[in-house]
């Protein structure tokens, strides 16, 4: 059982049947009244945020949430297979990561959050390097800044890259945004 006085930034609580993490926290006490705990809550299932005020008699369940630090091994059908430190295989549905699963590289270190035994979130390495397997050559003479073209990376991920990036180059991608960051090496 979590009580109001336990509330703090970073704590995970279950509230109205939904697991949340507290991303911002403040305590206010009006006049000589009851303390009020203002929490910004992030829904662990869909990422939506909400601000709620709780009184000091509020009680919460501790959500059955566990973080596992794993390494990506391979993709098998719709599932992604990871290895833990003991080299045990742990398989999760690829849908948890959506299109970003295409940015996984072998042996990538990830943190997967499980809620009631189900994977609900995968924290990937912030940057990954991937080889461009297909991109049309940039049109010569078009030197305007911010002009981009589509490129397909190894694994099938498609993103916008600057015109100077060529097929065979290796690019760095920010996995938080899914966008091109810079060119890591030229062909």
């Amino acid at each position, binding site marked *: 059982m979590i009580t109001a*006085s336990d509330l703090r930034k970073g704590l995970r609580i279950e509230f109205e049947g939904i697991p949340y993490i507290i991303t911002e926290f*403040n*305590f*206010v*006490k*009006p*006049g*000589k*009244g*009851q*303390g*009020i705990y203002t929490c910004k809550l992030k829904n662990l299932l869909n990422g939506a945020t909400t601000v709620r*005020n709780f*009184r*000091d*008699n509020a009680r919460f369940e501790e959500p059955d949430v566990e973080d596992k630090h794993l390494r990506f091994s391979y993709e098998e059908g719709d599932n992604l297979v990871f290895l833990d430190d003991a080299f045990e295989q742990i398989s999760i549905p690829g849908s948890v990561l959506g299109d970003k699963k295409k940015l996984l590289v072998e042996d990538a270190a990830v943190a997967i959050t499980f809620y009631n035994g189900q994977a609900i979130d995968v924290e990937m390495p912030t940057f990954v390097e991937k080889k461009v397997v297909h991109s049309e050559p940039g049109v010569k003479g078009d030197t305007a800044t911010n002009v981009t073209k589509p490129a397909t990376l190894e694994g099938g991920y498609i993103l916008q890259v600057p015109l100077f990036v060529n097929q065979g180059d290796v690019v760095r991608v920010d996995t938080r945004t899914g966008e091109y960051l810079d060119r890591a090496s030229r062909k």
Partner: protein
Amino acid sequence: MNVDNSILEQRHRVVRAIRRFFWDRDYIEVETPVRIPSPCLELHIDAEPAGNQFLRTSPELHMKRLLAGGSAKIFQIGPCFRRGEKGNLHRPEFTMLEWYRTGVGYMEALAETKALVAHVAKEVPGQTGIPWQGGRIELMPVWDSMTVRDAFIGAAGWDPVSKFDADRFNLDLVEKVEPSFSPERPTVLYDYPAEAAALSRLKPGDPSVAERWELYIGGMEIANAFSELTDAVEQRRRFEQCAEQRKARGGEVYPVDEEFLEAMERGIPECAGVALGVDRLVMLLTNLQSIGDVRIE
């Protein structure tokens, strides 16, 4: 260190200005015990234990004993402790200014508070128009003032005086009433529901409200004041009621301060008292957002 030197110096100048204000008005500066056997019984304030005693949550009861002993104008600046209170505006250890004056009521105390705020602002930051969170507050000359009843009817749509609901009162105060105050001027809420009287006397002629006010500036509660309750029988009844409520909530019940009640039985003259959060006043005058920016920790 968490507080830089220029803030330390400004804090010093605020405290110096406060002392000068009271010295010039013939107040006596007092120091009452910090470690005490009987912290004041209040429903939502928890005392920090210190050995077989407690650290004071406010100097109120001791200062009123001095009034019973013949003091007429006293002030104190010192540490107070409240267990479990930590936020941008709260610390378990903080600095309180309290002053008491006999022969006056809560509205005279309000006029004096206004003079104090103006006096201190002329020292730090040096003028009564001050920057605050990207905006500006004019500390003088206009202070908005409204009864608790009117403020709640206007901002929350109900009257806490005719029917008090403690939980709803606190939440609506934070979520609806306080945000309705002008960000450009101080606001005073006065005449609290009798159920929220704390240690104030009920209004002569209208016992549904208590002679209590709270000062808000820049979204912060800066000071709380009472026409002090001086009726020992009523005071004992309130302590006993509070003890019952604390017990029902699973809180610790502190022994009643019998010496304080005896002093009240001997007689405390009609008086008013104000408690002002020094850390928050420094925050306001230095345009800093957290109590941790102005207190050494």
